[in-house]
């Protein structure tokens, strides 16, 4: 054995060149992930320059070490590992063969784009997706409405149990949270109004402030936003989980329309319960206002009621109420459609649930603004 002319040592591995045969390298010791320094040392050598490696004194080896060693070999030598790697037993030879084969796999063309192009690509993709989603929503609305009309024609196909179940889940179960929340907001609005109106000596107008805002806007809007978060997301998650489990496909193969059996009971339940909850919200908001008014100002409950009766047109109640079924339609259709869009993983359920809540709250507020303009034009 010739004396090595170069020798680099780390804890366990040594790499040496034999005199006279510069292209034969000799590697001793452990060469694995636990001995990362040795591997990095190999990476530091000239890559693809060696014809033979003497591995007789190699001890531990793993894939990372094998990659580092094979990278040292000339491409031609990699084709004939039997000749290129010396001093290996059959098993190790097979291991190096396997790693070399895996390394030879051609790397597919990666599509690297400049940053500004990525930006535009994403923008374009986003725009197209948004347009497609809009169309999808419209077509789903059409599908739901046509199924609904068909159901009206043959009411015997209505799933009563499912309908009542969802009425309980979306309506009755939401009573405490809707009631409490609107009561508190009513009190806050009254308190706010009192603070500002006091400066004008017009504290009594607090009554109008609370009643107008709750009848026209807050009652229905708060309820709709709460239900979008509470029921819209539940619709998406329920239908999404079924979609992931191929239950929707199973329904289709049985000749059952998933829209009829899954969407309509939820839609109808919400369209009944959202107005009911809106009524509750209006009443509790006004009661909250009355409580705040009697506690912080000298407006007694009876004075509050009288003022409410005299100064608040009943039309305002209907302005709020008429919006409730529309919002219910938006929330349930968006919630169900997002559920149907779920594909594959549980992560997808989460993503679409988020998207469902964001979209329905956006649409609810957007339509509320449209209603406001509409009623303004009508002069109500």
């Amino acid at each position, binding site marked *: 054995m010739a004396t090595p002319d170069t020798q680099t040592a780390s804890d366990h591995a040594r790499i040496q060149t034999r005199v006279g045969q510069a292209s034969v390298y000799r590697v001793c010791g452990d060469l694995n*992930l636990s001995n*990362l320094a040795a591997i990095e040392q190999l*990476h530091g050598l000239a890559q693809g320059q060696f014809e033979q490696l003497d591995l007789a004194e190699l001890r531990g080896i793993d*894939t990372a070490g094998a*990659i580092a060693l094979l990278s040292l070999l000339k491409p031609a030598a990699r084709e004939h590992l039997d000749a290129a790697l010396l001093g290996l037993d059959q098993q*190790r030879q097979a291991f190096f063969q396997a790693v070399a084969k*895996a390394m030879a796999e051609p790397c*597919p063309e990666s599509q690297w784009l400049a940053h500004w192009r990525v930006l535009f690509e994403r923008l374009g993709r986003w725009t197209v997706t948004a347009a497609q989603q809009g169309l999808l929503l419209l077509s789903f609305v059409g599908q739901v409405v046509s199924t609904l009309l068909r159901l009206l024609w043959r009411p015997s196909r209505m799933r009563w149990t499912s309908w009542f179940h969802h009425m309980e889940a979306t309506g009755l179960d939401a009573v405490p949270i809707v009631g409490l929340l609107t009561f508190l907001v009513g009190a806050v609005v009254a308190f706010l109004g009192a603070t500002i109106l006091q400066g004008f000596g017009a504290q009594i107008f607090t009554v109008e402030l609370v009643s107008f805002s709750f009848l026209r806007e807050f009652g229905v809007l708060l309820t709709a936003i709460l239900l979008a978060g509470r029921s819209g997301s539940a619709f998406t998650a329920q239908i999404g989980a079924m979609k992931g489990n191929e239950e929707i496909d199973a329904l289709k193969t049985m000749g059952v329309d998933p829209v009829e059996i899954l969407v309509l009971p939820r839609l109808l339940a919400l369209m009944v319960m959202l107005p009911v909850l809106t009524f509750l919200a209006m009443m509790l908001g006004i009661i909250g206002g009355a409580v705040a008014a009697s506690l912080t100002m000298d407006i007694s409950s009876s004075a509050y009621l009288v003022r409410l009766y005299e100064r608040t047109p009943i039309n305002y109640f209907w302005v709020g109420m008429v919006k409730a079924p529309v919002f219910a339609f938006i929330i349930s259709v968006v919630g169900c459609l997002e559920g149907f869009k779920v594909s*594959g993983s549980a992560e997808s359920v989460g993503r679409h649930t988020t998207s469902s809540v964001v979209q329905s709250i956006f649409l609810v507020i957007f339509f509320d603004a449209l209603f406001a303009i509409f009623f303004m034009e009508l002069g109500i």
Partner: protein
Amino acid sequence: MSPRQEQTVVIRVEGLVNRFGTQTVHEDLALSVRRGEILGIVGGSGSGKSVLLRTIVGLRRPNAGRVSMLGIDSLDAADEQAVALRRRIGVMFQDGALFSSLTVLENVIFALKEHFPLSEEAAVALAQVKVVMAGLPLAAAHKYPSELSGGMRKRAGLARALALDPELLFLDEPTAGLDPITAAGFDELLVTLRDAMGLTVFLVTHDLDTLYRTCDRVAVLAERRVLTIGPLDEIARFPHPWIQDYFNGPRGRAAGLSSDHSDSTQQGS
């Protein structure tokens, strides 16, 4: 690898008891796995194959008994020791159990970077080799698990299990749900990897072809214990009705006839 030390026991299970409520799955179960072998675990549905696997890898604490892996008592190991032990084993779950928010390549890189201070470049190169060794085309490496077929997901799961070059590999039904050609490819891959990397494989399977092609020994789980353990041809002659039905039933014979026995009897070289 150094010549296989056949008689070294790398997994030892003693007096294992597993209960779910009043239902006893394992009662005083004992099992040992030797270094470098592929041990197949068979048994009827509900015989506790997967429970045994989960107990050995430490996902389930048994009601009684001892489990040691690579000479370390895995139930009583200190935290650091347990982590070090986990680094030396790889587990492939039934449907891959890939992280759905990561691509296949990122799934493999995850464990690597978690345990070793590798550079991004080195980690990618290493992970790519693992992906290819597990039989996936590199084009699939940048896909998300939901975009893969069942067979590809299994291979991706194998790639991730192999990420740290484990000494012990646990496979839960690796060929279930694969077409026969893909499954045969998987068997071959398993034997190649075992020979090349010196793996010890704990294989839970229902697939008779896999048993014939890959396993050095087979353990039959029935009646809450290991009924018998040994080379396949010995097991197949064991006089127990379930075993006879299993190996000599209509599907058993087909697999036995069509396979090459030379692989299944190699016990070290």
